[in-house]
């Protein structure tokens, strides 16, 4: 029986709603909300004109474009190849599968600076890969392309690990059912597999994107950090801090926060709309 208590929530077999919810609010406040609000409070200390001058300077705008643009491209690349990796890990069996699976998680564990240095060494004009790309006119290290490479490396596990369980849960049977009904492999993918994993894929994309926007360590080594060209927004923040311009740093941070939040909300809204559509 659904009885109501003074607090207005339903009696439930799940224990400790009050305690767990209280802790959730407390922890979220302490760990997420208070530091974030500090960013806005600090920013509010500077005047509007000053804020616009720092946060919307041409240099800052180009840095936002690079940060968000490269993160989006990297997340998109990861969405495609991460889905493929997840499919291989779930559907096929091969010797060394556990090792491959562990490799996927490495970008999580590796200090990002190490990743940045390793990638730079590979893609620099005298590096293993860079020496062949450079003559072909493709410059990866010390260019925006390098930023995309670094963010792709960082973001891969997010897509693989969010899609993998959904794909496993979907089962091979639906793909077999599609084949028995005459669907080609492409039709089976586009009409059966993809729609089923799309929400998870969107979540993975969002996580990889968010991670990419905030990434600092690996990018600063490979990007070359040329102002107006290969400079990411988090680097601008660090530069402001080095000049003891804390308000300036928080101004850029606040702008990035609002933009990131808007993008993530949009992805969430898209997923909610999709869920609503299929459960209607």
């Amino acid at each position, binding site marked *: 029986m659904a009885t109501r208590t003074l607090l207005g929530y339903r009696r439930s077999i799940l224990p400790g709603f009050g305690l767990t919810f209280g802790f959730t609010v407390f922890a979220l406040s302490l760990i997420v909300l208070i530091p974030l609000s500090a960013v806005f409070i600090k920013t509010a200390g500077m005047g509007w004109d000053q804020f616009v001058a720092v946060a919307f300077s041409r240099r800052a705008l180009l840095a936002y474009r690079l940060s968000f643009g490269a993160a989006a491209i990297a997340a998109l690349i990861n969405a495609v190849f991460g889905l493929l990796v997840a499919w291989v890990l779930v559907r096929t069996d091969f010797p060394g599968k556990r090792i491959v699976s562990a490799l996927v998680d490495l970008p999580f564990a590796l200090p990002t600076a190490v990743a940045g240095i390793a990638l730079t060494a590979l893609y620099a004009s005298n590096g293993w890969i860079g020496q062949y790309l450079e003559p072909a006119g493709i410059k990866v290290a010390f260019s925006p392309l390098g930023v995309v490479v670094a963010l792709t490396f960082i973001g891969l596990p997010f897509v693989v690990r969010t899609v993998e369980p959904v794909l496993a849960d979907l*089962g091979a049977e*639906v793909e*077999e059912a599609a084949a*028995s*009904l*005459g669907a080609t492999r492409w039709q089976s993918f586009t009409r059966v597999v993809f729609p089923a994993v799309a929400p998870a894929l969107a979540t993975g994309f969002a996580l990889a994107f968010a991670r990419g926007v905030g990434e600092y360590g690996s990018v600063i080594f490979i990007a070359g950090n040329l102002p107006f060209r290969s400079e990411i927004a988090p680097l601008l923040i660090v530069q402001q801090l080095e000049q003891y311009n804390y308000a300036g740093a928080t101004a850029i941070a606040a702008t990035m926060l609002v933009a990131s939040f808007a993008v993530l909300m949009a992805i969430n809204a898209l997923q909610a709309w999709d869920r609503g559509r*299929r459960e209607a």
Partner: protein
Amino acid sequence: MTVETHDLVKRFGGFAALEGVTLQARPGEFLALLGPSGSGKTTLLRIMAGLDFPDSGRVTFDGVDMSDRPARERGIGFVFQHYALFRHMSVADNIAFGLTVRPRRDRPAASAIAARVKELLDLVQLPDLGKRYPAQLSGGQRQRVALARALAVEPRVLLLDEPFGALDAKVRKDLRRWLRAVHDASHVTSVFVTHDQEEALDLADRVVVMNKGRIEQVDTPDAVYNRPATAFVCDFLGNANRFECALRGGGVEIGGLTLPNAAPPAGDGRGQAFVRPHEFDIAAAGQPGIAATLRRVAHTGALAALECEVEGRIVEATSARPPEGLTPGDALTLVPTTVRAYPA
């Protein structure tokens, strides 16, 4: 359509799933593949469908070799134990799937597809559920949708893998009667896998009894039940009790009695005899027959079920007229009325 397999062999690692299976499903026939788990029946069905490929051997449809054709080119309908419905599609879209994936030149017009879906929804007795999603249906309803989806493409052969395995007993029974009716109306050659002997005997025109990757017997339900060809079939069907016996001159020597052998004739020597629970007469102790001790007696409606102990093993017997006043611990004699014996 005639579906044939020729000497199929399939191994998974060291495990031999099929060891030379040759079988024919006749046009319009309803064929059951019956066997314990691990007997290879599902592997055989999946190879017919093209969802698995044999190590050697051939599959032919009406004499045409299908061995190298992928599932989508075989013109089959396949029904899975766990339905395998497309969760993100409505029931109607699920049923229409096989038609909408056809190349444009073979694809019916949208209106024709809609009409076909409606017709199938009526056939599976779910006329109002086209707009629902699979998650909103019961297990029995989902399996009906899965069947409608398989029938939508007008398959040349319908293959069903334990179609009622995930359903509860009542729904199971209703659905199997209904499936038989659908089959009788459509006359599409059908092969279904089951480990439930009652289901196989009730539903099929012929039953294929499988064991360890081989076919033990292919015959009508009546024949496999009453004239089991091998000891395995006899043991697997009908809860038979097993005894040691001697075979001599066409007769079976058991418990001091010599009885005619109801199984195919075998040579002389040691044998194993099978007696089904209802094939015993209960006599007083000391009479010729199998000496037994009563352990438990249960009166279940018309029949009494007697659980007896013979030389340390449990033997089950049922009797319509058990002697009155039987109590556990009593000695009695079991007199087999029908014995099937096979060389040991």
